[in-house]
Structure formats: structure tokens, C-alpha cells
């Protein structure tokens, strides 16, 4: 299994590539069915809605914030475009294009996150890192001090 590859493309794009040992049909289900999304996106999710159709929308809730936005394009099991707003701020947020390509019996996934400008991209990387660290430490605290 190859590890996730991260690339910065031009001023605005973050590109993530990852291979999975299951075919696109299964990866698509895991990316679009709320019951499955809940199992991998984050252990802290409190609600998860996804209507992966053109004109549909999604919303992922954490205790203190949420991501939501419109689904612009969806063509199972290979292509989805959505816009990801933070806490309902529709003036900002990347356009996220996910592409699944069959690769033998597995899948090559490419996720392109296109931000409004270089500053928005840099902020997103820092924020993702900061939130991730907080989440990891939160989990360690839960393990250390069970209630």
C-alpha cells in the first residue's frame, strides 16, 4: 500500500494521491455513504450527511464546528466535485475534486483542493495541522483519563 502523496500545485492547489487495494465501486461507497464516512473521517464526528448527486449537498458536524457545501458534480464511481465551507461561511472554502481510477483490482484516488488564493491555501494547511494535533492529543487524554 503506497502512502498518501501530497503536492502543492501552482498558487492555489493541494493535490493528494493515494492508492487503495479495493475497486472504485467500494471506495466510492466509503466516500459517499454517511454510515461509512463516519467510520473513517473522524472519531469525533457528531453528525454526517452526504447526498452525492449533482445538486446535492453534504454536511459533517464536529462538536464545535462543521463543514458543509454543495455537490456540484457526481458520477459514480469515479468523479465528484464539491465545495467545502467552514462553519457555513459560503464566501470561502476550497473546491474539492475527487477522482477514482481503476488500477488493477484496486483504485488510484486523486483529490485536488483548489483554494481562492495562496494565502487561503497556506491557512488551510496550518489549520488542518493544528486541528489534527488537537484531535490526536484529545484522543490521548481520553485514553489516559477514562471517565
Amino acid at each position, binding site marked *: 500500500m503506497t502512502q498518501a502523496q501530497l503536492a502543492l500545485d501552482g498558487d492555489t492547489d493541494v493535490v493528494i494521491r*493515494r492508492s487503495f487495494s479495493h475497486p472504485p465501486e467500494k471506495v466510492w461507497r466509503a466516500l459517499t455513504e454517511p454510515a461509512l464516512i463516519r467510520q473513517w473521517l473522524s472519531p469525533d464526528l457528531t453528525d454526517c450527511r452526504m447526498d452525492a448527486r449533482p445538486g446535492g449537498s453534504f454536511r459533517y458536524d464536529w462538536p464545535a464546528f462543521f463543514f458543509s457545501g454543495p455537490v456540484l458534480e457526481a458520477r459514480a464511481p469515479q468523479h465528484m466535485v464539491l465545495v467545502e465551507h467552514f462553519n457555513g461561511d459560503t464566501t470561502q472554502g476550497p473546491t474539492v475534486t475527487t477522482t477514482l481510477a481503476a488500477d488493477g483490482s484496486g483504485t488510484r484516488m486523486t483529490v485536488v483542493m483548489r483554494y481562492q488564493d495562496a494565502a487561503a491555501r497556506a491557512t488551510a*494547511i496550518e489549520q488542518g495541522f493544528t486541528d489534527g494535533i488537537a484531535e490526536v492529543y484529545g484522543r490521548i487524554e481520553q485514553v489516559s483519563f477514562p471517565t
Partner: protein
Amino acid sequence: MPPLDAPFAALADPTRRAILARLAQGEATVQDLARPFAISQPAISRHLRVLEDAGLIETRIQGTARPRRLQPDAIAQLWHWLGQYRALWEDQFQRLDAVLDRLDDQPEGPTP
């Protein structure tokens, strides 16, 4: 302004990335740097200014010469941020691997 903004903007330009690659082999003057690139010394100087403002390189003063060199801490820090960010994605994808491995046994449709 976020601390990563200027370095990322600086790295978006292919000539500036090539200059950094050259400086990774050792310090160099504007004249040294202009030679392999088909652009003028003033243009190189402008690129160097952007890289220096972004904290990626520094100027050493040596008599009348002003050789530039990499600012290793800044490069390492940038690498660190990107590495951590990538690791977060990889954590998520490893949970996704596990979901996919279990998926054959799962009925379709939402379960709480």
C-alpha cells in the same frame, strides 16, 4: 498573514524553485545564479528578494560580495508542516482502508 503564506507563494514560481535547488548545493552570488538561467541579473535579484522576504534564503556579507545561501531552519520547518499535514491525511486513509476491508460484510444503507 499566516507564516506559510510567503514561503508557499515564493515556491510557486519555477525559477525560484530552481534557484533554491542551486543554493542547496552551496551559496552563490547573483552573477553565479544568473549564469544558468536565461534571465537578467535584475530579474534574478527580484526573485532573490522574494525568497529572502519569505525567509527561505539569507544574504551573507563578504567584503563587496553578497552571496546568498539557504536558510536551513525555514526549509526544515516548511517540510515539517507539510509532513505533518500529509500524515493527517494518511491516518484518515488508513481508517478508510479498514472500512474498505470490512465493507463486503456490511449491508448497504445507513446504520447509526
